[in-house]
C-alpha cells in the first residue's frame, strides 16, 4: 500500500498528479474493507482516506450553511445528512441548471478499530471532512528487541 506523501518542498503540480494517480488506482480496485456505501451515483460522492492516526471521510458538498448539515455517529455507522438550496434573484429565467439541489443522506460503516466518539468534522471551501481517530490500542507501536 502506497502512502501519498509530499516531498519536503511542496510542489502543487506534482502533488496533483500523484494524488490523481492514487485515486485512480483505488477507483478501479477498492481496498478490502467494505464501507457499506451503496456505490457511485449517489449524492454526495464520498472519498475515504487513511493515515497513521485514523480515517478521513470526505464529501464534496459546496454551498451549504452549517445548519444545513447534520452528522451523527451510531455504533460504527457515520451518517451525514444535509439539504442544499439553490436560490436565484427574482424576475429571470434559467439557461442552465446543472447543480444538484435537494436533501441527501449517506451512511458509512467504519472499521471497529476507530473511535467514533472522538470524531471531528470541518467544513471549508465546500468540502466536508470528518476525521475519525484510531483507538489508542489500535495505533501502531514499536516493538523493542531484547538482547539475548
Amino acid at each position, binding site marked *: 500500500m502506497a502512502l501519498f506523501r509530499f516531498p519536503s518542498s511542496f510542489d502543487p503540480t506534482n502533488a*496533483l498528479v500523484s*494524488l490523481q494517480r492514487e485515486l485512480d488506482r483505488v477507483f478501479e480496485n477498492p481496498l478490502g474493507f467494505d464501507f457499506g456505501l451503496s456505490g*457511485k451515483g*449517489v*449524492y454526495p460522492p464520498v472519498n475515504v482516506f487513511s493515515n497513521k492516526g485514523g480515517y478521513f471521510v470526505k464529501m464534496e458538498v*459546496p454551498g451549504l450553511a452549517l445548519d444545513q448539515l447534520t452528522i451523527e455517529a451510531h455504533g460504527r455507522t457515520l451518517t451525514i445528512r444535509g439539504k*442544499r438550496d439553490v436560490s436565484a434573484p427574482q424576475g429571470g429565467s434559467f*439557461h442552465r441548471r446543472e447543480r444538484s439541489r435537494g436533501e441527501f443522506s449517506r451512511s458509512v460503516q467504519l472499521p471497529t478499530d476507530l473511535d467514533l466518539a472522538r470524531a471531528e468534522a470541518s467544513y471549508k471551501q465546500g468540502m466536508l471532512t470528518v476525521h475519525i481517530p484510531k483507538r489508542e490500542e489500535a495505533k501502531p507501536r514499536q516493538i523493542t528487541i531484547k538482547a539475548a
Partner: protein
Amino acid sequence: MTTQELTAHEKQEMRTAETTRPGRTYIPDVDIYETPDSLWLWADMPGVDENSLDVRIADSVLSIEGRVALQEYSDSTPVYTEYHVGNYARRFSLSGEIASERIKARMTNGVLELELPKAEHAKPRRIAVSAA
C-alpha cells in the same frame, strides 16, 4: 418544493484545451440565470478558495479556472473513492455585451457566484407602439 432524488454524476474531464501543467482538469457544474439587467452564474468548485481562482473575459469569452488545495491530503492514502480530485476550468461564449468593469465575483463555501451586468446599450428595450 418537491423533493427530487439527488444523483451524483461523475465529473467530466475538460478536454477542449490542453493545459501547460500536468494533471487532469474537470468541468464544474454551473447554473446560469438571466434577469433583464444581468447574467448570473454559479459554479460548484469544491476545494477551491478565492485566492486560487481566475475569472476573465476576453473577446466575449468568459473563462473560469480554479485550483484545488491539496495540503490536507498530505501523508494519507485513499482507501475508497467515488469522486476525482482535480482543478476546474470552463469557458462560455457570451452572446450579449457585458459591462466588465461592474462584474461582481464572490466565492462562498466552494461556490463561485458571478454577476455579469449587461452593458447599457445591450439591455432589451421595449419599444412603445403608438396607435395610428
